[in-house]
């Protein structure tokens, strides 16, 4: 059943293209998009189930064979399953939300076309079997999401888009170098848990290989918004909220983190990297990003920018988990990947709902809204508690495991990273709770006209919010199961 891994990629891409050429009316478009998304999600689930039942070989698929050991090929392993399931669940919900949110926007066909396409591409990143395939989809992701970032086409959007693709292409260029070196010093380009380096060839080249690792780390780090190369993300917050929520809090950025995971555990291998200066640099970069992102979030007054900075910080939680380079770290990183996905998308949806109903974008404009938009702010507060890491909510599970496995290293770097997590946790409270407090205990003094009267949005928006919040809580309560699954992944099964 190799089609099962190919179809979820092909279907949305083709559907998106068709949509843009076809330009149907509102109703038809919505039905078309929704059915396409649902079908894709169903396919992903089917593929995951099939693989789970019969093993990765059952759904592996070589699409194009370029040359010897260079191919565009797909193969679903445990890690792919995790990432695949995340997007398979979140995409339909976001689609529903987007229908409502985009109601007053222009160029909906283009938007939903690329929205569908990026679904397929992200799925491709999840299912990629080797670094070439990963690289291909990585480039395509940039291209597919660029129109979404530039959607408004005004000055700010153009600037954001320009910044976005410059950063992304620089990252891809760095990854290209990795590709060359792996072709030279690796046994294969495929993902092999434990690394593919051919030590016979690599002997004597360690230092340059470590350099290449760092180059590639920051190359992928662009999408994961690691510190020196992060600044595209806050600007990309000008995109319509569904994009910011799904792509810039989940799909795109998580692809970056996912790629870093592939790079560390399936590319160079922890045996080669563990304890080298490269690992220290990677961990340090992550730690710096964690603190920096949270600090900027505290300072940011624009609601979505604040959340974007928070995303930067939280992504580096994940990266840090991976950079610890122990199975525990990998498991922890994946766990935070799952939880942050659900929590952050909810937070963004809340911000979007406020913008959509009242057109307010700044934190100090949220005062007193909780009484007029109870659902939005209730869900916001719950998810905020989760992100802050109040046990037993999801954020704590991820943070706890990451920090414990970092501290378990017993090195100064490990303790420093744990400390960074702590500082960030404090800052997290400081940039999330005041929003809730202000929305409840302060007075809303801003004037508003009829069509911007603050009130809970209709079901199309509230439903995703509630579903996500409940799901997030449920997922937190199911954390033992999740952790056991993920530790299975981390064990390399």
């Amino acid at each position, binding site marked *: 059943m190799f089609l099962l891994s190919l179809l979820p990629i092909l279907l949305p891409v083709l559907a998106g293209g068709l949509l843009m*050429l076809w330009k149907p009316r509102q109703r038809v478009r919505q039905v078309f998009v929704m059915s396409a998304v649902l079908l894709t999600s169903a396919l992903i689930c089917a593929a995951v189930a099939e693989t789970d039942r019969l093993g990765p070989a059952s759904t592996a698929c070589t699409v*194009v064979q*370029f*040359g*010897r050991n260079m191919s*565009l090929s797909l193969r679903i392993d445990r890690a792919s399953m995790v990432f695949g399931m995340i997007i398979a669940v979140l995409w339909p919900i976001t689609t529903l939300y987007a229908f409502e949110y985009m109601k007053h926007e222009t*160029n909906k066909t283009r938007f939903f076309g690329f929205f569908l396409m990026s679904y397929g591409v992200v799925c491709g990143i999840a299912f990629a079997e080797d670094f*070439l395939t990963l*690289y*291909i989809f990585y*480039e*395509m992701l940039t*291209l597919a999401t*660029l*129109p979404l970032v*530039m959607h408004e*086409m005004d000055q700010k959007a*153009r600037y954001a*888009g*320009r910044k976005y*693709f*410059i950063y992304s*292409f*620089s990252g*891809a*260029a*760095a990854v*290209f*170098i990795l*590709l*060359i*070196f792996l*072709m*030279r010093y690796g046994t294969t380009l495929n993902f092999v848990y434990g690394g593919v380096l051919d030590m016979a060839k690599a002997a004597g080249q360690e230092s340059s290989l470590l350099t290449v690792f760092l180059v590639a780390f920051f190359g992928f780090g662009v999408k994961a918004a690691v510190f020196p190369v992060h600044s595209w993300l806050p600007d990309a917050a000008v995109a319509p909220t569904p994009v910011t929520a799904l792509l810039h809090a989940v799909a795109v950025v998580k692809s970056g983190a996912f790629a870093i995971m592939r790079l560390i555990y399936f590319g160079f291998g922890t045996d080669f990297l563990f304890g080298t200066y490269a690992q220290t640099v990677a961990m340090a970069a992550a730690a710096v990003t964690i603190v920096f992102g949270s600090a900027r979030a505290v300072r940011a007054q624009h609601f979505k920018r604040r959340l974007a900075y928070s995303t930067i910080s939280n992504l580096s939680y994940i990266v840090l988990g991976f950079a610890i380079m122990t199975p525990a770290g990998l498991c922890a990183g994946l766990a935070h990947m799952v939880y942050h996905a659900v929590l952050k998308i909810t937070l963004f949806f809340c911000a979007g709902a406020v913008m959509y109903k009242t057109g307010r974008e700044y934190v100090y404009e949220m005062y007193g809204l909780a009484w007029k938009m109870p659902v939005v702010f209730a869900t916001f507060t719950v998810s905020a508690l989760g992100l802050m890491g109040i046990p037993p909510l999801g954020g704590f599970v991820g943070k706890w495991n990451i920090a414990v496995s970092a501290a378990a290293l017993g090195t100064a770097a490990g303790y420093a990273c744990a400390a960074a997590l702590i500082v960030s946790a404090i800052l997290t409270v400081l940039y999330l709770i005041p929003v809730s407090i202000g929305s409840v205990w302060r007075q809303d003094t801003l004037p508003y006209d009829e069509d911007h009267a603050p009130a809970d949005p209709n079901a199309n928006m509230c439903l995703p919010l509630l579903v996500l919040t409940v799901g997030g809580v449920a997922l937190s309560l199911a954390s033992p199961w999740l952790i056991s699954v993920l530790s299975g992944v981390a064990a390399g099964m």
Partner: protein
Amino acid sequence: MLPFYHYIPSVCILLCLLSAILLAAVRNGRAAFAAGIGLAAVTAVLSGVLLFMLMPAEESFTFVMGHFPAPFGNELKAGPLQALLTMCFSLVVGLSLLGGWADLKHDVQPDKLSLYFVMTSLTLAALYVLTYTNDMFTGYVFIEISTLSACALVMAKDRGPTLVATLRYLFLSLLGSGLFLIGVVLLYSVTGHLLMKQVGQQIIVLRSTGRFGLQLAFIIGLFTAGLGVKSAMFPFHRWLPDAHSSTTTASSAILSGTVIKGTVILLIILFCRVFTLGMVNALHIDDVVFALGIMGMIFGSISAIRERQSKRMLAWSSIAQMGYIFTGIGLGTRAGIAAACFHILVHATSKSMLFCCVGRLSAVNGHRKMLKEMQGTARHDILAGIGFTLGALSMIGIPLLAGFASKLYLATSTMDSASKTAATLFALALSTVLNALYYIPAIVTVWAYPEDALIGRAPRDSAFTVSAAVSIAVVILLGVAYAPVMHIIEVGLSLL
């Protein structure tokens, strides 16, 4: 009795020259157009047949023109590489003519139209000879012929700036061919031969005696500089943007796609067949070429970023892409030269497609050239838009497109020459980003919704449609199935 395919190179050349002469008599532009396309098609097919015949046995042969045997006579040498390149050239010329036909009718006076195809035939002939010839003086003669025909192609659009651009192009090319000629003469004076094979043997003898080292370095320098001028190597590139951008679409496509490549191929053949690579390395010519190539790569892109006029932007990009090719040659290894040859194919197809699509897009909006005036034009001719997008992405080096493959080979080939690895990889990375910096906004512009209604909706252009479709197919094909092509190139290089 020779097998029939030994005649193919000479037949192709003669066909081109013959058709050039005959077309001069034709008055009807449309008929001439048909003839030009036909010529391109026939030569392409013939080269294809030649390739098909040579490849299985991996053979190459020399063909004696006239009845003077070596060392006096005039020879052609044909191998798989030459066959592949000539096929590509014919293809590109044909596609460019198809794609630019509408603009030709718009830019050239109807009565001069047939003469245009005389020039294309001559250009094709020159390209064939430059690829096949085994005799350096013949090479010189046809460099001059290609210069003249190319100038004529530039002049086809009869406007003042075009004329001045032509003049500058002419003078610089003549300087280049002059340098080349001196090189030939000096080489003759030290070796006493003009046929590459014999010259090569003599040079080996000379090097064994150890004499003439300085002269040889000087000679190679002359060759490199002369051919470099012709093919817009970095410091000698100033003539290209005006010449390639100010003229009509088909000319731009042909010039950027093929003409500047012919001389590069001659340079490669000289390096491999006459002066061996070992000698080039020993004299550090390759390092110079390498450095110039990298600089061209970077500066070409930077200038392109600053450029606001669509076709001139593409012209600057050509300089950058020639930088890739010279970098490949400059690596001084067979792998590097193979990568360079592959990039010749890639750039020929992609860039000609780009020029045709831009021509079409600007035609959609009343032949306006400025990028900002082309906003939204792609929505009026989807195919042109797609072609432009794919071509641009291929130039950036996005996977599944031709450009990526050559970038890949260039990068991998540097891994052998340790001293140049870091520089090349860094330059490639930087240049990728720089390319993206001007191509991506261009793509966005042509697809964006236009602010005001476009003027002069151009009528449907079936010729363009055909050429665009074929070009797209070729670009994608090169990007996906590059392995066999690369195999041909490697075999051809070994047989050069």
